[in-house]
């Protein structure tokens, strides 16, 4: 059996196991299965998001609030320009007058500029495509912030004390959306996706052609932000 065929078999097996493990009607998707203890993230997965901006209202910021709660982004730096924002709502007004709104966060690029420029290798991409900052080796040079075309990264400007035990973050390091890696590893959805009552955000495995996200991307018109840069983002949008 070739490596690919074996992987496909395993993925199919996992999907089947997921399908029978989850009660019908429960809003949980099969690929987001918890990994066993001691098992590393695998490139059989590439986690991504599909965001339907047609369902996203300008007045709603449920995803932003959920992210702040989940990741313990509670600090109130006096200068708002120095506050961390892992996810933000952007209101867009196109030349023809069309207005819409969408959540913007780390796009979890397949070829991330932040990883290219990081001098110490703190900026890194996990096997399953999640782009993270290893704060153990981040020296706080902010070169990644200069390089990111999405302004997805923030620098922690003050000492912190209110961290979520599952989400370490602290002074002098750069940080960004982790795609809620601590939840994904447990088989849960990212907090923003869970909080979106409009169903505008779909989380799934881009590496599995049978996942819902892959099927929708294959059949519907979707966009990557700054597609011209050819970064192959893990976050895709509809309706922009």
């Amino acid at each position, binding site marked *: 059996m070739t490596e690919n065929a074996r992987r496909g078999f395993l993925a199919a097996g996992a999907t089947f196991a997921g399908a029978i493990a989850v009660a019908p009607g429960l809003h949980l998707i099969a690929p987001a299965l918890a990994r066993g203890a001691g098992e*590393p993230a695998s490139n059989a997965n590439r986690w991504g998001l599909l965001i339907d901006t047609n369902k996203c209202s300008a007045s709603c910021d449920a995803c*932003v609030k959920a992210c*702040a*709660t989940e990741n313990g982004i509670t600090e109130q730096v006096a200068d708002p320009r120095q506050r961390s924002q892992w996810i933000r709502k952007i209101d867009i007004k196109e030349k023809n007058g069309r207005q819409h709104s969408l959540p913007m966060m780390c796009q979890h690029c397949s070829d991330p500029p932040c990883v290219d420029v990081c001098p110490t290798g703190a900026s890194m991409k996990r096997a399953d495509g999640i782009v993270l900052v290893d704060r153990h080796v981040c020296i706080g040079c902010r070169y990644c912030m200069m390089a990111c075309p999405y302004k997805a990264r923030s620098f922690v400007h003050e000492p912190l004390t209110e*961290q*979520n*035990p*599952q*989400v370490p973050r602290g002074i*002098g390091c750069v940080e960004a959306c982790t795609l809620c890696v601590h939840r994904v590893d447990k088989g849960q959805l990212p907090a923003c996706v869970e909080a979106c009552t409009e169903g505008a955000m779909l989380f799934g495995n881009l590496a599995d052609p049978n996942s819902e996200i892959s099927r929708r991307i294959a059949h519907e018109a979707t966009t990557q932000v700054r597609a011209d840069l050819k970064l192959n983002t893990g976050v895709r949008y509809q309706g922009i």
Partner: protein
Amino acid sequence: MLRILSTLATIALALPLLQAAHAGEVPKPSAAIESPGTQCVAPPAEIRRNHMEMLKHQRDLTLREGIRGTKVSLNGCIACHASKKTGSVIGNNDNFCQGCHAYAAVKLDCWDCHQPKAGYQATGATP
């Protein structure tokens, strides 16, 4: 005569200083483990000597490779070793991590980012 007097005076002055120096010696850390688990992940002697390597090894595995649920875990340390009074492993020299690190004069780098309190729930106020 004057010389003897001054020598005596010097000794008299120096004695309390010596004593103070002796008294000022840092006492051994005395952090009591208030909510002990049944068994630590390794024998105390090995933990004392190698905990930093164990944690460092695990941090790289967890963060970079996504390996979770193994025996070594910083949150696991806190769960057993946090003080009952403050709920934390740092904050003062009676607390587990800080007490020993103050004694050994080794800077603690973990808690700039990691939450030192056991079972801490982030408040979740929106920024």
